[in-house]
């Protein structure tokens, strides 16, 4: 007695017999599931990294969300009662209260900076310039990036001060040296207005900045030059002239600042700035758009006002601060950075949607090829089952079970593998990217439906087959339908553009376009193929070899690869070309942006005297150093001053003897060494572009020779390999310099503008699509291997060598391969034009204008050649498999 039913045994044995192909389907489904489950999340992680990098870079520049208060007074008790770090905690928390809970951690610990206006300082022994007393500003900064080291005395003590107490202050050693200050010295600070009471301050310590050059500290010290050292400048006009005076900033405690505020207010506005830096580690790419919106809401006047309403004309009370009416302003300096990122991400996802859709289609076609081969190999069994009384529904049910047994575990394994993969390197919080749900469902449905669907198609009676005229009409209708759909999709995309796109996610319309365009390409190919083959056959008949004639004659009966194979080739190549084109455009635009810097490196700052310039010139890799200085030339009468760039002509001539600008400045051109901007071309301006600071060549400006003996404020350096750190090491440590190199600028653009994410998706899709395409081609060839094997074996009985049989297959496949390569490459190049306004790369490239799409014809040709090579590889694999078939077995009529 047999235990299981005969139909169960039959189904099991058929499953075992089709094991290899079903395993192939399982692998395809598993890899596809892995791809759609892990791919978007991995890309989203790279997006997170790019966002954090951008935000961190912007934070180093002091950007964030800032609240400024036109302060009239500070509640000394509230401010000075506790430790300085917590002095204004209540108010800062109050500022963030209207934000939703998820957004608050993204705004980091705020820094508070309160500064009085400059006041005249008076003290015995205080250094003066020409008898004019210096001006001193008192500042409270709760965070000094890099920290301070006190070399004498102490920091201003934390704690409440008695009313009218002396305000403790600390100054930098440079300030001490210039102003001749001593510890314990009392300094009177006068607002300078008649009748105003001066405040009294006492020097309690001197400090030195620990680090002023690192990226994290440079921005702070660049914005606080007076804190580091006194800066000479023009003083207010007295008796008809403005004397040169020294200006310096000294530090005090929160309580000290509160104590001095009433007196300082007489000199002008006491400015309080509370800056909330964004916490890059707490931010995710997925939340960037929402955070930007929240920051925008913060700056809206309708945002919850943290100040107590005041009657008309009276000051408002904002936490511990008494603020002039309307004196509170909130600015979200970081918002443009976030908006740029969100726009760039949407742009990248347009490209990603395209790549992923092409890949998904190639994967589905490969799956279809595998399923068709699985069912096709059992075609005779199908007929036998039908003859023995099996219903189509029953046969479909068996195949549905086979499909489920393959699909469900493969999906689960793919998904679990993706989850495990994502566990590595995961941290909280991170973006998850667009959910893979519907993509997984699509793969699952394809896996479940293909086998029973193809079984149904294969089970139809032969008499059901339509007449040739009907088939021709149907084919025309399908071709017309595909064409109309493709045109409609492209037109719709053109009119819609990028608006309405989610910040990240696969847009169905954009995803549909490459599939439809690929289908159009395949349809055209199927029409062109017989014409090309006819010509090839006529050509081959004039040759002596029989192989091409046989190959082309056989190929004429069918493309060998079938519509599915052609579609795979066209889509794969179009995806590869398009991906390469976008990547090249983006990286090329980054290089262009970097080239807008005047030289390989540019140093800006004060004190670039001959000794410093010599030190810079001695740095490894530096070839030439050109000094430049930005000036303003007074205009006559009502004419505004004209921006003027002074250039070291001798150095420029040494750097570029053919420089037209150098020759003009040297006096052998128009003018007497003074060159108007309008006389210069863009290439002439390359070395002064940094100094122009955004001025376009159309704006009025002058270029003049740098006066002998004057120190430039900018050094333009020629030296492709010059290192930023070595340059910084060569510069004086007590001055803050801004250093830009093309290399670091390109790297920054690459890492902060989602280039990594773009590259990952493009490269991964290219690699996977190529692998899928190879699998699809081999499967397509295997589907026709039986009839081809019979024909070749028959020819071998007449003396055809097996090598010639391989040549025959290759010759047979070359025309469709070449046609597909042409169509795919053409489509890839045309896609940017077809996408129209939906493809924007301005935010990704970081440039001011939309970049010009760069077509690399050499790479495109190489990719086209690669596709042809792929087809040849598939032919060799097929031939290799065919060699294992015995001649007798193949030729035996109706053998299995």
């Amino acid at each position, binding site marked *: 007695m047999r235990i299981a039913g*005969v139909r169960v045994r039959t189904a099991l044995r058929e499953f*075992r*017999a089709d094991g290899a192909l079903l395993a192939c389907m399982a692998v395809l489904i598993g890899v596809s599931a892995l791809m759609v489950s892990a791919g978007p999340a991995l890309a989203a992680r790279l997006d997170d990294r790019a966002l954090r990098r951008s935000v961190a870079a912007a934070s180093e520049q002091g950007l964030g969300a800032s609240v400024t208060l036109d302060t009239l007074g500070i509640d000394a008790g509230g401010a000075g009662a506790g430790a300085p770090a917590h002095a204004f905690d209540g108010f800062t928390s109050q500022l963030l209260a209207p934000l939703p809970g998820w957004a608050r951690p993204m705004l980091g610990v705020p820094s508070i900076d309160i500064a009085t206006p400059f006041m005249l300082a008076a003290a015995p022994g205080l250094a003066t310039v020409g008898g004019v007393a210096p001006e001193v500003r008192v500042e409270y900064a709760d965070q000094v990036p890099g920290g301070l080291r006190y070399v004498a005395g102490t920091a201003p003590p934390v704690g409440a001060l008695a009313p009218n107490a002396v305000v403790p202050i600390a100054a930098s050693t440079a300030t001490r040296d210039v102003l001749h200050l001593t510890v314990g010295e009392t300094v009177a600070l006068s607002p300078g207005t008649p009748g105003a009471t001066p405040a009294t301050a006492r020097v309690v310590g001197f400090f030195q900045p620990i680090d002023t050059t690192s990226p994290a500290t440079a921005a702070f010290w660049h914005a606080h030059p007076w804190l580091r050292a006194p800066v000479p400048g023009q003083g207010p006009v007295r008796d008809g002239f403005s004397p040169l005076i020294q200006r310096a900033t000294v530090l005090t405690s929160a309580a000290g600042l509160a104590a001095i505020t009433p007196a300082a207010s007489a000199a002008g506005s006491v400015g309080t700035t509370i800056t909330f830096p964004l916490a890059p580690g707490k931010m995710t790419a997925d939340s960037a758009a929402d955070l930007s919106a929240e920051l925008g809401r913060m700056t809206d006047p309708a945002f919850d006002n943290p100040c107590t309403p005041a009657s008309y004309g009276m000051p408002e009370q904002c936490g511990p601060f008494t603020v002039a009416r309307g004196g509170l302003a909130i600015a979200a300096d970081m918002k443009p950075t976030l908006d740029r990122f969100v726009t760039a991400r949407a742009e990248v996802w347009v490209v990603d949607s395209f790549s992923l859709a092409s890949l998904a289609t190639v994967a589905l076609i490969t799956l279809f090829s595998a399923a068709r081969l699985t069912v096709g190999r059992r075609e005779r069994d199908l007929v036998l089952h039908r003859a*023995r*009384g099996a219903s189509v529904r029953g046969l479909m049910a068996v195949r549905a079970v086979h499909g489920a047994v393959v699909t469900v575990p493969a999906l689960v394994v793919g998904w679990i593998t993706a989850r495990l993969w994502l566990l590595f390197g995961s941290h909280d919080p991170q973006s998850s990217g667009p959910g893979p749900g519907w993509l997984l469902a699509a793969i699952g449905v394809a896996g479940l439906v293909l086998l029973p669907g193809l079984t149904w198609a294969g089970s139809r*009676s032969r008499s059901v087959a339509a007449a040739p005229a009907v088939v021709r009409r149907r084919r025309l209708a399908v071709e017309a339908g595909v064409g109309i759909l493709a045109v409609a999709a492209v037109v719709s995309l053109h009119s819609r553009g990028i608006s309405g796109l989610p910040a990240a996610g696969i847009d169905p319309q954009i995803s549909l376009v490459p599939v439809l365009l690929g289908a159009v390409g395949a349809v055209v190919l199927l029409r062109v193929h017989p014409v090309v083959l006819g010509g090839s056959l006529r050509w081959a008949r004039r040759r002596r070899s029989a192989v091409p004639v046989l190959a082309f004659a056989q190929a004429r009966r069918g493309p060998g690869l079938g519509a599915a194979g052609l579609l795979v080739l066209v889509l794969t190549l179009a995806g590869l070309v398009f991906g390469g084109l976008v990547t090249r455009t983006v990286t090329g635009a980054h290089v262009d942006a970097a080239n807008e810097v005047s030289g390989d490196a540019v140093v800006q700052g004060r004190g670039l005297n001959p000794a410093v310039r010599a030190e810079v010139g001695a740095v490894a890799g530096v070839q030439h150093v050109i000094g430049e200085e930005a000036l303003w030339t007074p205009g006559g009468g009502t004419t505004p001053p004209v921006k003027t760039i002074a250039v070291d002509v001798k150095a420029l001539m040494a750097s570029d003897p053919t420089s037209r600008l150098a020759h003009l400045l040297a006096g052998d051109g128009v003018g007497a060494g003074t060159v108007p901007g309008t006389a210069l071309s863009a290439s002439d301006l390359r070395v002064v572009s940094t100094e122009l600071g955004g001025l376009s060549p159309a704006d009025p400006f002058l270029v003049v020779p740098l006066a002998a003996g004057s120190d430039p404020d900018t050094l333009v350096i020629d030296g492709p390999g010059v290192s930023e750190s070595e340059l910084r090491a060569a510069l004086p440590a007590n001055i803050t310099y801004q250093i830009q190199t093309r290399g670091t600028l390109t790297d920054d653009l690459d890492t902060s503008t989602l280039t990594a994410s773009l590259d990952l998706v493009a490269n991964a899709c290219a690699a996977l699509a190529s692998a899928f395409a190879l699998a699809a081609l081999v499967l397509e060839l295997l589907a026709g291997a039986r009839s081809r094997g019979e024909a070749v074996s028959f020819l071998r009985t007449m003396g055809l060598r097996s090598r010639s049989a391989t040549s025959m297959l290759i010759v047979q496949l070359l025309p469709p391969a070449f046609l597909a390569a042409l169509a795919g490459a053409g489509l890839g190049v045309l896609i940017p034009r077809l996408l129209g306004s939906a493809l924007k790369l301005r935010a990704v490239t970081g440039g001011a204008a939309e970049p010009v799409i760069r077509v690399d014809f050499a790479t495109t040709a190489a990719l086209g050649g690669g596709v042809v090579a792929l087809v040849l590889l598939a032919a060799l694999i097929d031939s290799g498999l065919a060699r294992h078939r015995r001649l007798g077995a193949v030729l035996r009529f109706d053998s*299995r």
Partner: protein
Amino acid sequence: MTTLDDLEAHAARPRERFGAEAHIVCDNLVRIYQADGVQVQALQGLDLLVDKGDLVALVGASGSGKSTLLNILAGLDTPTAGAASVAGCDLLTMKARDRLRYRREVAGFVWQQTGRNLFSHLDALDNVMLPMSYAGTRGAAAERRAGELLELLGVGHVLDRHPGMLSGGEQQRVAIAVALANTPDVLFADEPTGELDSVSAQQVFEALRTANRELGVTVLVVTHDAAVAGQVRRTVAIRDGRTSSETVRGISVAGDGSERQIAEEYVMLDRAGRLQLPGEYVQRLALRDRVRVALDEDHVSVWPAAAGPASRPAPDTES
């Protein structure tokens, strides 16, 4: 004079249906299909009647339409025009459900290729049981009947072997058992001995005869094998998609009581009165385009157009 009423009455009178008593009926059967873009008319108005319980051989040259006819009768293909019925089942008007029932319960089929009749991954017993499971017979009853069938056809000893372990003759006999699994009314066999040696072919044909004799199944077998064709009572020849002639074998008892086998070959006359003359006759008398015919008292005579009744005697169409 014929009146309108007479004509109406004539039209309303029940007519005798063609082959009303026959088990298999093909009436003016036409099958046209496309092969490599070429339209092929495989059957061109074929008529055939087979009685219940008969064992009939179909012979004909390659491409004459034998296999097409058999596929249609087995319910594996549908005719383009004409009428065909088997055991009362109209093969043209059958719905999918009826066709399925027909394949399960009415018709069994054996192909020429030994490897095409059996599932290679099932043993002989499972191969026989599979059609039963489709028809709803399962379990011990199916296993018992499958065993009985294999025993009946002389292959009871191979029931646990897979087709790859069987000889060609054994495979074909198992295939006959498979075709008989659901006790069909009719068994169609398409050159079942075509790939076999004479001994195996004899065994297979014996199995067919056993099925016909023991189970009462009507058997229609297509064959090229003269030995096979010579062993059936009736052999129908098909030429160019039509039945052309028929040989009926019987036993004649002589006056002395001795019995001898006789075979009489007939030319087929279709319902429209068309006659297909044997090819050798046509060639020998150079008959072409038009011929002379004459009605005698009990036969019809045919002459070449140039000749006439006076010039030569009428040929006898019986042999």
